[in-house]
């Protein structure tokens, strides 16, 4: 994302189920305004829903930072989910389909990664977790990595 620059950042708290609904709505609205298609919107909002819920349930709450990205004529959204929770001990394991420490399906992290174009985890045990994702409005600035 070296070539992109930021304009305007919105911070939203993640502390309750109501906050999750609010975050989803805000992201959907922002994506629609940036010209995301319906499918792209739905994918991004679903990924956001998974990650925000992780922040709430596993991280004990936190916040998400939403930034509009520009890369030439292409617009995108970057979302950074931050919490001060226990962190992720084994990121590779956490990214495995079906692996869960809670009672969910274990598809949240891996599924969210497949729904967005850029995905990064920064986490240490005991040091909190930051997950950053980005999605672009039309087409793709880079060829899609894998499974389309």
């Amino acid at each position, binding site marked *: 994302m070296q070539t992109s620059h930021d304009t305007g950042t919105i911070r939203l708290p993640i502390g309750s189920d109501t906050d999750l609904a609010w975050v*989803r709505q805000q992201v959907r609205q922002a994506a629609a305004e940036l010209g995301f298609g319906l499918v792209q919107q*739905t994918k991004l909002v679903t990924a956001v*829903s*998974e990650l925000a819920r992780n922040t709430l349930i596993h991280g004990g709450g936190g916040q998400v930072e939403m930034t509009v990205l520009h890369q030439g004529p292409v617009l995108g959204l970057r979302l950074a989910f931050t919490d001060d929770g226990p962190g992720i001990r084994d990121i590779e394991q956490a990214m495995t389909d079906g692996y869960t420490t809670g009672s969910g399906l274990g598809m949240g992290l891996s599924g969210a990664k497949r729904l967005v174009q850029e995905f990064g985890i920064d986490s240490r045990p005991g040091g909190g977790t930051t997950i950053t994702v980005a999605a672009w409005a039309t087409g793709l600035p880079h060829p899609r990595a894998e499974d389309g």
Partner: protein
Amino acid sequence: MQVSEQDAASEWAARKVGEFLRVRQEQIAQRWADAELFRTVFTVSRDEAVEAGKAVVDALSDVASSGRLDDITAPGFQTVRDQLGRMAASRARTGSTPAQVAGEVAELHQPAVTLLRGEFPDPAGDQAQECALALTVLMGTLRLVVMETTLRQGDELIARQRLQLLEVATPVIKLWDGIVAVPLIGTLDSARSQVVMESLLDAIVAERARYAILDITGVPTVDSLVAQHLMKTVAAARLMGAECIVSGIRPAIAQTIVHLGIDLGTVVTRSSLADALAYALRQQGIVVAPRTPVGANLS
């Protein structure tokens, strides 16, 4: 007990203000009836505004006489709390923000102080100053009472609506003998999905339903938690001998579910509620045909 001169003076002022409010109740109410707050709330008749104003003046008089000028929990306010709440709510309905309403309450201060000063032979004297100060404190407290009442009413409204949503948004509809449907609308969080599952299972028993349709047309986001809730509901219905069909899966949702990696392979799904109903009817051997068959081939 030693009472300082200052305390004695403010106590005297509070009593004096209480007395003034009692004696001049009518005049104050008359002036308030012309103020923005009363004028805009009581649009039908001015008398109504005056009566409402009198009630507020009475309450203030009580509070002042009890000496609790800056106490928003003073018992004197209890009698007008409901009325103030209704007035604030009425202003809110016409688009005023809480801050604007508070501003309008503040406007009541000036006419009252002017009248109060007129009571004294020397309107700029120490006694008049002391009383004006006491009245100012009292009017500030009134403003807080109005704000507090407004905010509490807002909270109560939200809590009530939340409960309503929980119940209203999950009706179970009988579509045909043995076929029930739940049109899901909005966010399907854990509390909602619990209500949905309970009412659906109840309906399966009550209607002796063989088929239950869960329509998710109105669910904007289907993430892994929503999918999990759906699958649990389907499994529970199956245990009761009913087959569940999930309908209303839009193209965008379908693609998202696939990317998310959720396997809904064990669940019968249809894109529309009509398709789901057609499926359930066909499974029961029911044929829906036009009144005058155009072609002979209806199977």
